[in-house]
């Protein structure tokens, strides 16, 4: 799956021999959000709405990404920055194939894997079981899972303060949960790995280790996307940065330049 056959004349393209892994072509993402119990909380108003055939008032459409285009290449680590609600996480989910673009298209090599702090695995199960299930769900063969599971728990560091691996994940602190999820997702070589704020949650020690892991993943010919509000960790891990603002691509270039511009704007 990781290997792809290149056309013989691939070298003749003037893209300096770089292999694209993600092509985002004029993507617009519009999603509907349920505003919860806003507007009409009584049975009568619900009935009125059905009878008069008006759309539910508590659904609103959000145009989160407005015509973003870029190409990501093999071995790149790309940071995504922008203020809250600028569409960074939405763009990642579109790349992962979890949100359909309303217009435009996202092309990817292999199956991108999205790693977010909100993506809980199975809370009632122990950390160990989560590791095994997570690895199987990523499509690893059982023998490899058995071999790699202790390494994952070791890397996540959840056992540093007693035997937490055998406790259900709902007993974990948010940092521990995020660390374990990062450890599971990064155990497999992904063609494209999408990380949403995961590095910001761990403590200093874990951050250093996970930045190291991101670099390894990138070296093994994958592409890494990193969404973070911590400009520091973007500067440390990414050489290219994309700046989104209100769903529009504001700037795309070397991390140094983009981050400087982003910080000066504030």
């Amino acid at each position, binding site marked *: 799956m990781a290997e792809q056959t290149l056309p013989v004349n691939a070298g003749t393209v*003037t893209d300096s021999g770089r292999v694209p892994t993600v092509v985002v*072509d004029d993507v617009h993402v519009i999603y509907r959000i349920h505003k919860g119990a806003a507007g009409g909380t009584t049975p009568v108003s619900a009935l009125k709405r059905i009878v008069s055939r008006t759309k539910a008032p508590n659904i609103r459409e959000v145009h989160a990404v407005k015509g973003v285009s870029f190409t990501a290449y093999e071995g790149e680590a790309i940071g995504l920055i922008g203020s809250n609600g600028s569409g960074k996480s939405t763009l990642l989910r579109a790349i992962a194939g979890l949100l359909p673009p309303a217009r435009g298209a*996202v*092309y990817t090599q292999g199956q991108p894997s999205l790693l977010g702090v909100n993506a809980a695995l199975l809370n009632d199960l122990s950390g160990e079981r989560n590791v095994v*299930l997570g690895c199987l769900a990523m499509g690893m063969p059982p023998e490899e899972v058995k071999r790699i599971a202790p390494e994952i728990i070791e890397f996540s560091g959840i056992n540093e303060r007693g035997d937490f691996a055998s406790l259900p994940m709902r007993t974990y602190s948010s940092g521990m949960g995020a660390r374990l999820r990062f450890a599971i997702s990064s155990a497999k070589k992904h063609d494209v790995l999408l990380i949403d704020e995961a590095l910001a949650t761990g403590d200093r020690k874990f951050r250093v280790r996970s930045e190291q892991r991101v670099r390894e993943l990138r070296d093994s010919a994958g592409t890494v996307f990193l969404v973070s509000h911590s400009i520091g960790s973007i500067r440390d891990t990414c050489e290219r940065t994309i700046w989104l603002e209100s769903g529009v691509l504001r700037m795309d270039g070397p991390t140094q330049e983009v981050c400087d511009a982003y910080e000066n704007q504030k």
Partner: protein
Amino acid sequence: MANTAVADPESGLTRAQLAGRYGLRVAGERPPLGEYARRLWAYRHFMTAYSRAKVASSLSNTQLGQLWQVLTPLTNAAVYFLIFGLILAQHRNVNNFIAYLCTGVFIFIFTQTAATNGTSAITGNLGLIRALQFPRAALPITVTLVQLQQLLMSMVVLAAIVLLTGEPVTFRWLLLPPMLLLQTIFNVGLSMVMARLGSKVADLKQIMPFVMRTWLYASGVLYPVALLREHLPSWAASILEWNPPLVFIELARYALLDSHQPNMVSSPPKLWALGVFWAVVMGVGGFVYFWRGEKEYGRG
């Protein structure tokens, strides 16, 4: 579809052409049916591990733990026996009412839980769905596998009940595994249909208890199946003969209960034909229906 007017500045190709040249695929694209089935098969280890983990965790916070796997079906049977056997006195018309009732209850609960738990197979696993990409059909299949493990426990209890109430062991007992196989295939298809419906219509979860209770009364679990013929117009009775849970329950009774032979709702060959029919229709239909919605799961 895509706006291909934007050219890649370095290569002079449009973005879509660039993607095509390097064999990139559209993100979140649904694979063809055969490919989907092949991928699903590759996830069989995940499905078995997940269902085992679910069974282990489901009762982990109770005092009696896994003992409930036996106690739950027994309690269920006891409640129905109290109401329909003792209070409404249905037992007078059935030769071995306790075994008759327990067979019906256990077999029906297998299909019932596959349907109700299937409804939340997608909505209850959003964390997993949004984190990892795998064929989503693995989730409703896991639901059925969990129920299958509980059913096998119930079958041990049932065998004891059947023997204790004086039924002989016959060669027909060997018909039970193929019958359960047919019902399992049917349930997998059913929970796939319910999973897709439940992921779209959240209201379904509120309706399911009533649907299932109606279905229970229509499936000849709690009263003698002969009553169907006596009290319903003949066209309604003929329709009810096709009712899948009734078919599977009668097949199980045919296999286990010697005393029930004279009172079967239809002839055994007809029951087998209907059982195979439902397993194929629901198994294949449910799988195709679920596959067609593959792109939608976990969104919104």
